[in-house]
């Protein structure tokens, strides 16, 4: 389809603003823009239809099953969006006096209290705008803690090889060096390896639990003990928290810092890539290092507090992606304690059920029970029939399904990571399992056909090599 720049005509456009009702003050010549500004010249009809066309070329949770592992693509309740559109939230300037923003502060405080209860942490801060940003902030807390104790030789962060790429990347960005440790063949943290690498230079250990294979690490208490005894802190990547809300809490497992993804676990929509929200939480002894300002109760009203001199400072302007927090609070108030637990239980039931439906056909290297997700390996299929995880995933597109996460975790070859979430029905799980089996069958009989998939989508597989080798990153005007 055409780009918006290829639509419209010279001189066409919309009228949005009135004539000036005050004398016009023009900028002096020195500051005046000389370069022509080429924006689309389109009517409102054209804009409307353009985006309707784009909408039809987009796949959202409303379109169908979206089992993107570790991304928790659950249904996004519409009431959340409605609440985030209340003028009482959208029309509030971030630098209004505190007495005029008590509602906003209450949203942040209430959500903090609820998430502390869910995670077993003592404080939560909402400044981080996304998961990777939350990791960065959390690792800075660990850095500040050791600095403050003059324990400056602690410069290393230990990360298992099953971790999301953001873990090592965030650690490096926060100024640490990274030690990768292998996992056991069951997908757990290798305790021997962990014992070998911890020591006086250990700043902390990062873990996603349930891990990226969808397993809850049964040695979790031993793991956190080993790190603590070596003088390090434990960091909990909350990407997979959807498995354990109301069932177990990172704070009780020995974790000192956690980040959450409100756009995963707490049902806020992902917007085609954001805005998300990646709040960072911590235990009492780390609160003073959290980003400022903090929100505190004082004489019956909520107020900002920026007193801590050892805070890591800001990680962002203002207070985070506030409207995303509004959505998460709406969700938490709707579900309550019981509903959150039910959500996690059903996420786990659904994942196990789907695994059960698939296990006779597919190679599932870590058979259940799993938590909220599981991993299929197509290594054999690749070897025998030449059908890769990519071919398989692309064929799913022809069946109107969003594929699972591909080629992750890295420790499983030809991996497909499936996270159905609790908001899918048993009929959907059965239907999709049948589709996966049908595709498997086709892979045996006509493997070549799968290399050519998808065939029903608006475009076929893109030439990614050409895209990276000869980058075209903007429209070139004729």
């Amino acid at each position, binding site marked *: 389809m055409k*780009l918006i720049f290829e639509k419209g005509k010279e001189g066409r456009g*919309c*009228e949005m*603003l009135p004539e000036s009702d*005050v004398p016009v*003050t023009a900028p002096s010549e020195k500051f005046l823009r000389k*370069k022509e500004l080429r*924006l*689309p010249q*389109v009517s409102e009809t054209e804009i*409307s239809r353009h*985006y309707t066309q*784009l909408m*039809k*070329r*987009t796949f*959202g949770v409303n379109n169908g099953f979206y089992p993107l592992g570790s*991304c928790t693509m659950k249904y996004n*309740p519409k009431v959340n969006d*409605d*609440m985030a559109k209340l003028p009482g939230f959208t029309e509030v*300037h*971030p*630098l209004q006096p505190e007495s005029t*923003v008590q*509602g906003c502060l209450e949203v942040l405080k209430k959500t903090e209290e609820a998430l502390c209860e869910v995670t077993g942490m003592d404080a939560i801060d909402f400044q981080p*705008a996304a998961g990777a940003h939350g990791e960065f902030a959390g690792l800075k807390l660990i850095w500040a803690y050791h600095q403050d104790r003059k324990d400056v030789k602690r410069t290393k962060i230990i990360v298992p090889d099953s971790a999301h*790429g953001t873990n*090592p*990347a965030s*650690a*490096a*960005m926060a100024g640490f060096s990274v030690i990768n440790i292998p996992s056991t063949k069951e997908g757990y943290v290798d305790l021997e390896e962990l014992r070998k690498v911890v020591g006086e230079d250990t700043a902390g250990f990062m873990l996603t639990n349930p891990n990226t294979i969808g397993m*809850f690490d*049964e040695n*979790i208490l031993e793991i956190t003990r080993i790190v603590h005894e070596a003088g390090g802190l434990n960091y909990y990547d909350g990407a997979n928290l959807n498995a354990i809300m*109301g069932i*177990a*809490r990172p704070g009780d497992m020995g974790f000192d810092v956690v980040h959450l993804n409100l756009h995963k676990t707490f049902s806020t929509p992902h*917007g085609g890539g954001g*805005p998300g929200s*990646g709040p960072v939480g911590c235990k009492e002894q780390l609160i003073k290092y959290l980003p400022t300002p903090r929100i505190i109760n004082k004489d019956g009203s909520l107020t900002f507090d920026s007193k801590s001199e050892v805070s*890591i400072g*800001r990680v962002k*302007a203002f*207070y985070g992606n506030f409207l995303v927090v*509004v959505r998460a609070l709406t969700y938490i*108030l*709707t*579900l*309550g304690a019981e509903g959150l637990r039910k959500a996690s239980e*059903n996420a786990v*039931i659904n994942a196990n059920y789907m695994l059960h439906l698939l296990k006779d056909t597919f190679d599932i290297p870590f058979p259940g029970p799993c938590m909220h997700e599981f991993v299929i390996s197509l290594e054999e299929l690749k070897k025998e029939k030449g059908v890769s995880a990519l071919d398989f995933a692309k064929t799913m597109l022809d069946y109107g399904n969003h594929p699972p996460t591909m080629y992750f975790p890295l420790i499983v070859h030809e991996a497909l990571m499936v996270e159905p979430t609790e908001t899918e029905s048993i009929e959907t799980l059965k239907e999709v399992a049948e589709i996966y089996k049908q595709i498997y069958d086709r892979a045996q009989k006509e493997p070549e056909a799968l290399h050519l998939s998808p065939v029903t989508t*608006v475009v*076929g597989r*893109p030439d990614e090599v050409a895209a990276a080798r000869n*980058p075209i*990153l*903007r*429209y070139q005007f004729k």
Partner: protein
Amino acid sequence: MGNYVPNTPGEQQEMLKELGVNDIRELFRAVPDQVYLNTPLKLAKGLSEFEVKRRMKQIAAKNTVFSSIFRGAGAYHHYIPSIVTQITSKEEFVTAYTPYQAEISQGILQSIFEYQTMICELTGMDVSNASVYDGATAAAEAVIMCKERKQRKALVSAAIHPQTIETIRTYCMGTDMEMLLIPLKDGRTDLEKLEEMLDSETSCVLLQQPNFFGQLEDCDAVGEILSGTEIKYILSCNPISLGLLKTPAEYGAHIAVGEGQPLGLPLSFGGPYLGFMATTEKLMRRLPGRIVGETKDHKGERTFVLTLQAREQHIRREKASSNICSNQALCAMTAAVYLDAMGQKGLAQAAQLSMSKAHYLAERLCELKEFSLAYEGDFFNEFVTDYQGDVDKLLTGLEERGILGGYPLGAGQLLWCATEMNTREEIDALLEAIKEVLGA
């Protein structure tokens, strides 16, 4: 209690039975007894949708929505065309994930490609990313992006937004990047001091145009100072101003960043906003964030994909030069629809109106003997006044009259802002209100 689980309790039991599980605890057998919760979380009971709406509306009602806003300081009240909100509420756009599966994500990918093109047009740069978290993090990322093996000093103007300075400080802390502040002179960056501070370890220089105090910096002079050196020139800009004012590229900047909120995003107590980031072709592979590129599918059809992924965390892990997964995609789409609707003329008009209103406001304020302009330089839509009187009393008095006055900077200074939203009538009413408060 609201509920988004479709399977009935009966179905859940059946599924467990089929799994050969008697009690759900068996599925969680890896969770040690010591941490398995046998009591409910201490949270309120869930609410129906009807109840939750009432509760949230009660909370929202505790905020004051001012009918008249003369405050900017990093968050700007601009007109948002109806089509912007309509389009960005479409369920597909709202609920999609990052466009990993290009074949079913051409809509999102194309919208980002169009956004990238618009940011390039606004800033005059060659390449834009798909967005970062906000203006402050965009500036911090730009500083980090300029790090060289031997050049690790970032010279940052003290006249940029104070929260941006704080953010850059956090990003540099604990790494081998160092931030040094260039002092102020008459509300602008002291360029003589800047020249003195430059040395062989300087990696970049960052200014904001217009700066935090609303003043227009002599960015041409900075471009001249830095030309012929290897030092990178970063400019943070107000995107609306670029409808009228010189582009970062025209000033000779290597990296343009800024807060995209003025492009169609409501104030929303500070977020979600939009960090934009653009650079030259030469620095393209250092740019962090998601980037969408054009390619072809096997039939030769134009196709868009996430590209230059060799920079990113999921490929390079600890060696990555980009550690951004979720960005502000829907906010970027908002900005793109805003720019479609405004067009070049509309954007220039918004900029011109903002500038004219701010000057009218300044002129009217200075009619009062208590107010005078703090700085003499050119300004765009914000300016600082010195106020001979009790600032708190003045602002409270205005708030009681539904007006959010200038942002207090301390020492009797107020940072005022006007945009196309402030009608002449509203500005005149502000003056009357001030006179009332002064007379009281």
